[in-house]
């Protein structure tokens, strides 16, 4: 059982051997499946980085259970991340399929293309090949461009409303003398808990009766409502670590309420506010149920367009859009991480 003794160089050797075996095996069956072998190497090579060396007294049973635990965790992480990453190479498919063609697996250049990305821009345009007026045509007529404009417009305004109202409410909720705190907090979080279909149908009937259905205002109100719980959660979390004596100090030095908020509280809770706003923004950007019920064709958003795309004519254009959205979520995640670090630094916590 020396094989199981922890030794990174040995594990790497085993891994390479298995990869080589897959390569040889697949080459026997016709073509060389380079991609599966490579992905195997990456998927099982990375966990080695995270495995701690085991003490020398560990028994074989201990080692076996440790390695099977690492294997299980690897599989769960693969389960989590594969659906996100698989989309990206699939979107460069030259064929109108939702799957990898043989050419793609062998990295043949003509198996890849950007046609679905072009289709995002061209779909709906009057004349995609025109030279003059191309930009105006794209901006006004391309379906995906229209829905992108709608999505960002609705998400920005609703995130602004949710963040403003949510931050003010969180300031009240985090005060020690706040009455009915539990009741009001659960009311403010409930849009996240109540099933979306119920919220959306309720809003559809109510907004229809006051002529807000099928308008931007209606969709924005709905999305602001759905984003509020996330703002409340993130901002109150930031405020819970807030040193309240700073407020007293500021008041003691003669600052009035607004001055205290702007010069003392706001700079300190800014990271929480921004991450709350991002949460509200992405909630709106990803929301489709309320849009299905409340919005009209004119207010179509990206997820709404994807929804009907998946239901009606499933084309790889959706994969191209999805890849761009994955990129967007990576950017947002990075911003969130930077904000979190900044907020930790402000409180004097550094990663070890």
């Amino acid at each position, binding site marked *: 059982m020396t094989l199981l003794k922890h030794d990174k160089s040995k594990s790497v050797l085993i891994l390479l051997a298995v990869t080589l075996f897959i390569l040889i095996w697949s080459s026997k069956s016709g073509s060389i499946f380079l991609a599966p072998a490579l992905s195997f190497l990456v998927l099982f090579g990375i966990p080695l980085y995270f495995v701690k060396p085991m003490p020398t007294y560990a028994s074989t049973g201990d080692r076996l259970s440790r390695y099977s635990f690492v294997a299980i965790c690897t599989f769960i992480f693969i389960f989590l991340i594969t659906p996100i990453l698989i989309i990206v190479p699939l979107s460069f498919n030259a064929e109108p399929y939702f799957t990898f063609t043989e050419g793609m697996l062998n990295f043949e250049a003509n198996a890849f293309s950007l046609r679905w990305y072009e289709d995002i821009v061209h779909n709906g345009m009057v004349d995609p090949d025109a030279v003059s007026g191309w930009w105006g045509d794209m901006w006004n007529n391309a379906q995906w461009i229209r829905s992108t404009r709608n999505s960002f417009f609705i998400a920005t305004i609703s995130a602004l409303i949710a963040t403003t109202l949510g931050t003010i409410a969180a300031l009240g909720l985090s005060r020690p003398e706040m009455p009915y705190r539990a009741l009001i907090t659960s009311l403010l979080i409930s849009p996240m808990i109540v099933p979306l*279909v119920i919220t959306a149908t309720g809003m559809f009937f109510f907004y229809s009766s006051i002529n807000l259905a099928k308008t931007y205002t209606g969709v924005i109100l709905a999305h602001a409502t759905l984003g509020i719980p996330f703002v409340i959660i993130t901002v109150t979390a930031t405020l819970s670590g807030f040193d309240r004596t700073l407020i007293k100090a500021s008041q003691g030095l003669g600052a009035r309420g607004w001055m205290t908020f702007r010069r003392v509280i706001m700079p300190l809770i800014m990271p929480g506010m921004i991450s709350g706003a991002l949460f509200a923004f992405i909630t709106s950007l990803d929301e489709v149920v309320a849009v299905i019920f409340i919005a009209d064709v004119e207010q179509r958003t990206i997820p709404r367009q994807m929804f009907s795309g998946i239901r009606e004519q499933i084309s790889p254009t959706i994969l191209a859009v999805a890849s761009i959205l994955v990129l967007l979520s990576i950017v947002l995640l990075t911003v969130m*991480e930077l904000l979190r670090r900044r907020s930790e630094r402000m409180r004097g916590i550094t990663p070890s």
Partner: protein
Amino acid sequence: MSQAIIPIDNVTLKERLSKATRVQRRRALLLTMPLVIFLIISFVLPIGEMLWRSVHNPTVSNVVPDFAVAIQKWDGQNLPSEAIFELFVNDLVAAKKNREIGKTVGNLATRINYDIPGSRSLFTSTARKATNLKAPFKESLIKLNKKWANHTLWLSLQRNAKDITPGFYVAALDLKYDDQGNVVQADELYQIYMSNFIKTLEISALITFICVLLAYPIAYVLSTLPLRQSNLLMILVLLPFWTSLLVRTTSWIAILQTEGLVNDIFVFLGILADDGRVQMIYNQTGTVIAMVHILLPFMILPLYSVMKTINPTYMKAALSMGAKQSYAMRRVYLPQTIPGLAAGTLLVFILAIGYYITPALVGGEDGILISNLIAYHIQKSLNWSLGAALSAILLGTVLILYWLYNKLIGIDNLKFG
């Protein structure tokens, strides 16, 4: 000799303090008010108004108002009297001219059709000929169509002439009114709502269970690794959490379809024959897999935040005292993670039973959940009241679980990342 400290203006310190606290309490409350009012208008009122629809039943009294009042006096034996028949025909003639939505004969016909399937044409065709009817109205109406002699029909009309009705809940609970007007179990063929509701609960429980199994080791790894490494792995959890739900659903279609990745790998490895590919999407399996993936972060994050606070010395102490790894895990570590487990379980279960998008896209026929049925009644069959009654049942279940969550964990302990 003790004496209360009395300031110059004759107000005790205690009174001043309580006044100051009152002002502060009011200020704190005032800060939350804009949002509370916003939510009441944009969220609470709409839902309340929709739930009102589940008992509000104005059709019959709108379309045939005088008849609706008169029929209440009928004792339910034999057929109603000639006077009531006359009012009915007169109201029908008047209603024929009405074009206002909610007050047409068509609305009445649809409403009674929910109770007695197949009775729709009876109303519309009779209304067309109602002007020609002569007294005695009872006989001429029955002569026009002998279905008017049906006692059950008049019972249904009487029941629905009331503005508030439990009728939609009766339908939503898979019950029906029998010929004598008693509430009984509906025929097996029509028992779709409760069985779907139970199926929704079962699938949600299954999803929650799988989430616990998958999230526990992941949260454990994340909480025990050094911060630098765990931050790196955390990205693998947070990236799916931040990625659009439609992107993830699309991707599962690509992975699980018959020509998809999983089938390809199975065929490549020789587990499946090329012509024996398995359909894994557009059915219950696909729904469960995709929903587990979507809801998994909601289980990992609460578990992680609890596990991070667990002191590793307890485990070390147990091991040094001779406990086996598995025993120490079960008796020392697991009990300390219960708060996180409870939070994650309730959160995932609550989110799962109300899920709509993923089952709608990849559920196929047998992966349909209760939310999809509600949407069907609101968008397609247009039986809004039945949709509202189903919503009320679903909402009630969710609110009970939410209350439990508040009681056990406290909603203010909810955190993301």
